[in-house]
């Protein structure tokens, strides 16, 4: 069994999975049950001056029968008395000393920061996380993402926290910025020991067309919320990866954003994350998901011959390149396996309407490109008459086939195919060696590239 334990800027936990600050970490009894289930750590529901919440607070985007592909909330920070929170935190830490307990904090003035950090440390927390991310409600009061979007303000408050805190300080970043490096660098320069990202994305999850109200609806009205859940993972992967690759940022990264399975977690770690935080998936399915989060990750590491999670960390980072550095001469084509093809022809229509007209059908008049293969370089100002043609030998009449010379290797057919593994992309050996756009530019004008 691979070692899943982590040391994240001095904060240790038996596995990389921390509950993100949010409803699942709203109270001591919840966190205790989570730790009993096996969670490695918990970032407590953000503490500050208690607020008043509205009804309702959550909204979700379903995709067909897939519930909660995206999620939003307009809930604010804790609405429970601070004293109760701190008492519960102390009890949790006493009972589960091996788990990471992190206080998420959001207040306004320097004095308030000093006070709440002192009380957090007194409660026994292992680290504090500065919530500079919430894009709803709190930002209108000058906190949350209002801070995270202003690198100078962020840096100032982060330096206060560093001044007052004797435990590691994590800064939680908002993705609602043009370039995540700016707040990330600001936090690091202010002395942050770690970065957590992403917080939620400013969003409107939907509109109730009966009430004509943005969702979630509070009576007949609504407001923008913070978007999260599986659908935001690609955004989070990009931002975590960008910070991990920047040589000026040596602090560990706690990845947040759509982690639902061990595979999601492994992807974040492979791009450089040191821990992962989970919230929406727990809100959807409960603390028990930790079982496969750990078992699946452990199994994956074992299968790859990795003894510990740290071996996985950043493995995919070197393979992230700028577009201009990608190989222009690498070529693949689609292969449709006629044995597993079920004849839905989604690849045919996707290629025809959404890509490069190179998949053919014998079932009905075929509208694919029947001229000389030219990758659409020649003029196509007319809709050509469709062609009736027979399927290649030994092929079921509903099985489409690929014109390899015309295929531009875009992947679309493989993506829409409902049968796992039926369409694969096969590499086609090229006579020419690797050449990127940047290399081509440089060859054309050596002076232009310093």
């Amino acid at each position, binding site marked *: 069994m691979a070692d899943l334990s982590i040391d994240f800027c001095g904060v240790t936990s038996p596995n990389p999975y921390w509950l993100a600050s949010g409803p699942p970490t709203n109270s001591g009894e919840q966190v205790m049950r989570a730790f009993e289930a096996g969670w490695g750590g918990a970032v407590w529901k953000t503490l500050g001056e208690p607020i008043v919440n509205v009804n309702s607070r959550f909204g979700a985007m379903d995709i067909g*029968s897939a519930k909660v592909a995206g999620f939003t909330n307009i809930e604010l920070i804790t609405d429970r008395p601070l004293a109760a929170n701190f008492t519960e935190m102390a009890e949790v830490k006493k009972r589960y000393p091996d788990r990471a307990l992190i206080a998420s904090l959001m207040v306004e003035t320097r004095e308030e920061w000093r006070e709440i950090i002192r009380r957090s440390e007194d409660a026994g927390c292992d680290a504090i996380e500065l919530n500079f991310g919430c894009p709803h409600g709190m930002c209108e009061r000058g906190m949350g993402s209002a801070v995270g979007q202003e690198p100078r303000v962020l840096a100032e408050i982060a330096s206060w926290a560093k001044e007052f805190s004797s435990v590691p300080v994590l800064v939680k970043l908002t993705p609602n910025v043009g370039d995540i490096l700016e707040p990330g660098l600001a936090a690091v320069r202010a002395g942050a020991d770690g970065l957590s990202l992403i917080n939620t994305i400013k969003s409107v999850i939907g509109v109730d067309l009966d009430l004509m109200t943005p969702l979630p609806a509070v009576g007949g009205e609504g407001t923008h919320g913070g978007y999260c859940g599986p659908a935001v993972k690609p955004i989070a992967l990009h931002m975590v990866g960008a910070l991990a690759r920047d040589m000026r940022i040596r602090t560990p990264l706690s990845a947040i954003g759509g982690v639902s399975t061990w595979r999601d977690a492994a992807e974040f770690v492979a791009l450089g994350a040191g821990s992962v935080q989970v919230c929406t998936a727990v809100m959807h399915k409960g603390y028990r998901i930790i079982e496969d989060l750990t078992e699946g990750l452990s199994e994956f590491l074992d299968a790859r011959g990795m003894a510990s999670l740290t071996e996985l960390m950043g493995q995919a980072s070197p393979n992230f390149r700028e577009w201009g550095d990608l190989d222009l001469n690498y070529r693949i084509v689609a292969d449709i396996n006629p044995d597993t093809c*079920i004849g*839905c*022809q989604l690849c045919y229509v996707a290629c025809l309407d959404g890509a490069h007209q190179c998949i053919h059908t014998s079932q009905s008049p075929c509208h694919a490109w029947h001229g000389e293969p030219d990758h659409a370089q020649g003029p196509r100002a007319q809709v050509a008459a469709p062609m009736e043609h027979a399927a290649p030998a030994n092929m079921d009449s509903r099985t489409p086939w690929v014109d390899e010379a015309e295929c531009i290797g875009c992947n679309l057919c493989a993506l829409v195919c409902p049968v796992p593994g039926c369409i694969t992309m096969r590499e086609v050996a090229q006579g020419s060696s690797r050449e990127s756009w940047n290399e081509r530019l440089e060859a054309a004008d050596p002076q232009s590239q310093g």
Partner: protein
Amino acid sequence: MPTEQDTSRLKSNRLERHFEDSKPPYSAGEALIEADRCLYCHDAPCVRHCPTTIDIPKFIAQIASGNTRGAATTIFRQNMLGASCARVCPVEEMCVGACVYEQFNGQPIAIGRLQRYATDTACADERSSGRPLFTPAPPIGRRVALIGAGPASLACAAHLALAGVEADIYEREELPGGLNTTGVAPYKMQAESSLAEVEWLLSHGARLRAGVRVGEDIAFASLLEEYDALFIGVGLGRGRTLNLEGPGVWGATELIRAIKTEEGFALPAGASRAVVIGGGNTAIDIARELALLGVTEVTLAYRRREAAMSAYAHELAAARRCGVRLRENLRPLAAVHRGGALCGARFQEVGGNDVVELACDLLAVAAGQTTGVQALGAGVRCNADGTVWVVPGTRRTSLNRVFAGGDCINGGREVVDAAADGRIAAQDMLAAWRSEAARRKRNG
């Protein structure tokens, strides 16, 4: 005189009311989950296997998107009997059997149940909202008489009515709907549903004249004189009896009709053993119905091997699950009566010399039906088997202005085939009138 339709004359104490739906309706949630599984195939095989070529992926996607009325409209445009076809189509042999999931995980989309959900939900919405799904076109000054109020005529009349044609349906029976009302296995659809559908179809403007026998009460020729076109949708004639007669012996279609529509009908008291003769779907239906009604021993006696049966394999399998036993290679000889009561049926074993006697207190004969079009005195050309000949690719008969569809042209197929015939015949008529008008215009 012809009477206007009255579809509320069914009594509640009919034997068919004892049956439960074999495929119960979907709730909205169930329908959404099933609809969401559909892959939305291009040039989908389900559509190719639907005699009415309903755009199935489209209507399923419309259910998934919450556009249930749109889904129903997609269905009805191709098949005005979409509601009953959803219940009675042998989907395993048609759309569902062709679903690509059959080759993937063996779990095809439940197209029939989704179609039922769409049509039932939309029709209920139509009633509650008062917003019709279809609005008939203004009258175009044409009149069509349709003979027989079964699925073919009903479909044809509804399409005609929507196109602004005056459509009068002449039906010899009091209850309209044809076999949809009197012949469909009650675990698929009961008479109320059929009559409700008839009412909906007629609501688009067609009129029903029930209790009128064309050929007896009114001559075919006078109809042809009175109307711009005629549609023959008379179905088939009486069931063949194979000379099996006497107390306790039933024609299968008559027995099914009694179970479905006759007030207070009951099986003979104490009937515990039934023999059904035949190898088609009607034989399977009545055998399964008898088994479900509590007849402990139901034997299906067929004159050839199982593989030669015209019944669908999935229907036979379902009957077997209800306890029906199949005996192959038995050619019926006679019904055996003792003391005036049926006590058995005697068979010659095919390929042997044995005479076999099966004890029974109920004998149902499902040996096919004769054709019935001859009674009209229409003089249309018929095929060798007595079915009405139509011009290939159309539903035009050998007589000018006379069209036909349904069982009377195909010898007894599915409701969906009749529904397709009705639509195609209506299109044929409209096309004929259009070209007639164009001709007239050309000739000044």
